[in-house]
Structures are given as structure tokens and as C-alpha cells.
């Protein structure tokens, strides 16, 4: 199984600022995804991070608010832009390996608090 790390593990930010979250995998993976999980709630898929092309966003999420990069097969970033308190949440990165079709491995998450 893939080992996934995220940085930072948590942060407290001011309204109007931006935060970039990094996701690093210990092996090359086919698919990388970003999720949001609000306190006590389920997970919502934000976007699929595509290597070498623009991310694919789900309904309700836009690139201007959540720009995503994926420069190679082991790394991706998610930026939460112009933050407001409503963006306070846990952001999780997950990956899917070619040999584990449809099975996702999740990172530990980044807990974001916006004041």
C-alpha cells in the first residue's frame, strides 16, 4: 500500500489569506484526489489532480478557489485561496494505484482553522 504524507498537519490562518497543502506519496500512483471533511461530517470530493494537465473539479468547487497542481506522479498541492471561516475543515489527499483499482489510500489530513 502507498504511504502518504501531508504538510502541514494543521494550521490556523487569517481570513483573506491563502494556504497551500502538500501531498507526497512514496511511490508513483495513477490517480490523486483531494477531499474536504468538515467537522463531524463525511468526505466530499473536491477534485481529481491530473498529472500534466488541469485538475477535474466536482460540482461546487472551482479552480480560482482551490487551485491544484500535480507536477509528477508522486506529488500534488491544493491551495485554499482567499480563505473565510467557512473553509475551516480537514483536507485530505488520497491516491489510487494502478494495481489497486478503485482502492484509495488516504493521507492523514490537514486540519485548517480560519479565523
Amino acid at each position: 500500500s502507498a504511504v502518504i504524507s501531508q504538510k502541514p498537519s494543521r494550521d490556523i490562518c487569517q481570513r483573506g489569506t491563502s494556504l497551500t497543502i502538500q501531498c507526497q506519496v512514496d511511490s508513483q500512483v495513477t490517480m490523486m484526489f483531494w477531499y474536504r471533511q468538515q467537522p463531524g461530517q463525511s468526505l466530499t470530493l473536491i477534485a481529481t489532480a491530473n498529472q500534466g494537465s488541469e485538475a477535474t473539479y466536482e460540482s461546487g468547487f472551482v479552480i480560482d478557489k482551490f487551485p491544484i497542481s500535480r507536477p509528477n506522479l508522486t506529488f500534488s498541492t491544493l491551495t485554499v485561496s482567499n480563505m473565510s471561516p467557512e473553509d475551516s475543515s480537514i483536507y485530505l489527499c488520497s491516491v489510487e494505484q494502478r494495481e489497486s483499482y478503485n482502492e484509495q489510500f488516504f493521507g492523514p489530513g490537514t486540519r485548517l482553522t480560519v479565523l
Partner: protein
Amino acid sequence: LAKTTQPISMDSYEGQEVNITCSHNNIATNDYITWYQQFPSQGPRFIIQGYKTKVTNEVASLFIPADRKSSTLSLPRVSLSDTAVYYCLVGDGVFNKFYFGSGTKLNVKP
């Protein structure tokens, strides 16, 4: 996307078998059914996945009837460490469309 419905919470005792059912009435032909376990302050962890009939691994069984409109996760002989939230996920691995259910909080008592 096929939405899912799960019980909000369940209680059990150590050593019992626990069955958690997930409804997904609008499941599509390409969709797989996957169950994840999540402990506080951790990302979800894969438990089991299936498309139809029955699947068993070292930790759980997954029962899927012929119409695939529901699925049941079966945990044999639970222990205190199985206290967690269990999510049913219906996903289309071809188009990368996934929908996590609301989750079932399982509380295992001594």
C-alpha cells in the same frame, strides 16, 4: 451519482458480529461498492470492495444482492478497537466519480 444511506450509529458488544447496511438505489452499472473505516484524526482506511455477490477478506465480508441497490458490511467478532466510523462509498472508477455516505458510527462496548 448514486447517493448512499447508512444508519447514523450502531452499538455492539465485544465478540458480536456487526452488520452495517448501506442503501444505494441509484447505483450505476460501472459503480463499485467500497467500505472504509475512519478513526478520529486519521484518514479513512480501505476495508473491502465488491461489485456483486459476496466478497470476503481477512477482516470483513461484503454482501451485495443481485439488484445491487444495497450492500451489507459484516464484521465478525468485533473488539473495542473496531469503534470507528464506517463509510460506504459508491464509485465509478472509470470516470473517477465517488460519493461517500454519511457514515455509521460504530460503538463497541466491553
